[in-house]
């Protein structure tokens, strides 16, 4: 009888293997309806298949894309990419030594304390953190300048760079560094020949986590830049919530999504898989 029970157990186990796939259905259908379908709707708006008052016409047009690619908008797209690139590079330069220090030069106790200190801001929304920065920048009379926007971007995105770098550097095999020193390499040479190449995965993860959302950043340029800095984010806001020009807005966002996907694909292809 005992034998039979074990058999039954195994049978049940294979049964549950199949059954457990069914419990994916609720979440997948939720995402299919409320995440993926809306993107198809955006596409339909951008080619004019959905018109005013939701009327469907079967004459797709590329006019909205041509409108969205006018020189003014192109400049906004380039500005956003430039701002995001500048943010990413600044964050990388600022975050790397800190992540290196926390991962390799601290005692266990201090390390866990520092990591909590770096992770906490991760959890505070950009709106609150940007507002906090705004109170200081306004008393310094720095609001509505490009510098204010840059400071805000670095302020908001820095934790997103430090954490993946730290996670990566923490796994670094320290005996490799010792080997490099023993073989006569200077600390600087060791850094460039051993540490930096080994931390490339962390650098890529950090850069993606900063660059991709930074291209669409909206809160920082709006709150700290006023009308002096226009990005894809502020333009999207204006097109959708101010001018209700949904068709041109939809075309702009399709272009933007393609830019983001292209960047991600190039990144992942180059490095071969990224752990975020």
């Amino acid at each position, binding site marked *: 009888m005992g034998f039979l*029970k*074990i058999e*039954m*157990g195994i049978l*049940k186990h294979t049964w*549950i*293997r199949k059954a*457990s*796939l*069914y*419990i*994916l259905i*609720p*979440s*997948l259908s*939720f*995402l299919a309806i*409320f*995440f993926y*379908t*809306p993107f198809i*709707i*955006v596409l339909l708006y951008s080619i004019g298949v*959905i018109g005013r008052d939701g009327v469907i016409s079967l004459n797709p047009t590329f006019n909205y894309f041509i409108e969205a690619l006018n020189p003014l908008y192109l400049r906004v797209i380039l500005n956003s990419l430039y701002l995001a690139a500048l943010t990413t590079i600044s964050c990388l330069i600022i975050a790397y*030594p800190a992540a290196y*220090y*926390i991962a390799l030069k601290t005692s266990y106790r201090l390390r866990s304390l*520092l990591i909590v*200190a*770096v*992770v*906490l*801001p991760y*959890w*505070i929304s950009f709106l*609150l953190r940007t*507002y*906090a920065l*705004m*109170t200081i920048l*306004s*008393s310094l009379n720095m609001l509505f300048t490009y510098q204010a926007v840059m400071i805000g971007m670095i*302020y908001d995105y*820095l934790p997103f760079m430090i954490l993946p770098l730290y996670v990566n550097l923490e796994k670094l095999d320290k005996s490799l560094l010792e080997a490099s020193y023993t073989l006569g390499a200077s*600390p600087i040479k060791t850094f460039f020949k051993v540490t930096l190449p080994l931390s490339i995965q962390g650098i890529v993860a950090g850069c993606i986590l900063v660059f*991709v959302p930074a*291209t*669409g950043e*909206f*809160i920082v340029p*709006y*709150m700290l830049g006023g009308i002096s800095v226009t990005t894809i984010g502020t333009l*999207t806001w204006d097109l*959708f*919530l101010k001018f209700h020009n*949904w068709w041109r807005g939809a075309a702009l*966002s399709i272009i*933007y999504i393609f830019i*983001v996907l292209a960047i*991600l694909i190039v990144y992942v292809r180059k490095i071969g898989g990224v752990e975020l």
Partner: protein
Amino acid sequence: MSIIDKLMKIHTLSILLFLYFPIAIVVLSSFNEYREFTSFKFTTKWYESLIQNSTVWKAFNNSLSVAMLCALISVVLGFLSAYGLLRASTAFKSSIEPVLYIPIIIPEITEALSLLLFYNFLSFPLGFFSVLIGHIAFSISFVFVVSKARLAGFDRSLEEASMTLGANQIQTFIKITLPLSAPGIAASTLLAFTLSWDDFIKTVFTTGPGFQTIPLVIWSQSARGGVSPELNALTSLMLIISITLSYLYVKMMRK
């Protein structure tokens, strides 16, 4: 300790100072009688006027109900998908996982506007439910990632033992799987709650007339450089809640 190490230490500490200084200033000035930083006199009057502000109370209730429902629903959906996927074949897993990951990578603003167009096309009424659905749609993915990480370190032989000893799959799930993954579930509940509680972009795109959450109140009052003591008090409250939640989360993830 070499000079480079010392410089790195100073650098790290200045970064932390940079990250926390503005937050400290906001909290301090919310207790300041005067509007300028230059002089300080302790007061709680900004908090008192906050409590009497009915717009803030209404927004607080809205934020709380959306965040609680969002946490509940997305934890159930996200945890179940992590649980199910853990038992799937590798081929199936690698084709389904990206579907669950993509909402994290896509910039929030495109997600927000696509939902707006979706609602508009269906003439879906904008307000509580439209906001809630939007929040769940991205929280599921975050819960999935956290639960997956927690379940990965899970000893599967315990479930097998339970089944071999004659428990059925539902008993095993309730008596073995759920209690063992409780810290992960608690942590992802906190995460989903915070994501929703803090959210601004998705909310502003999918909300309708009359439905405001706290972030929307802060936004509408601070637009274009408006800094005020009442707003400092409100932001401080939100900051303290966020910091507490994240601290609890870090504690739970360590378990």
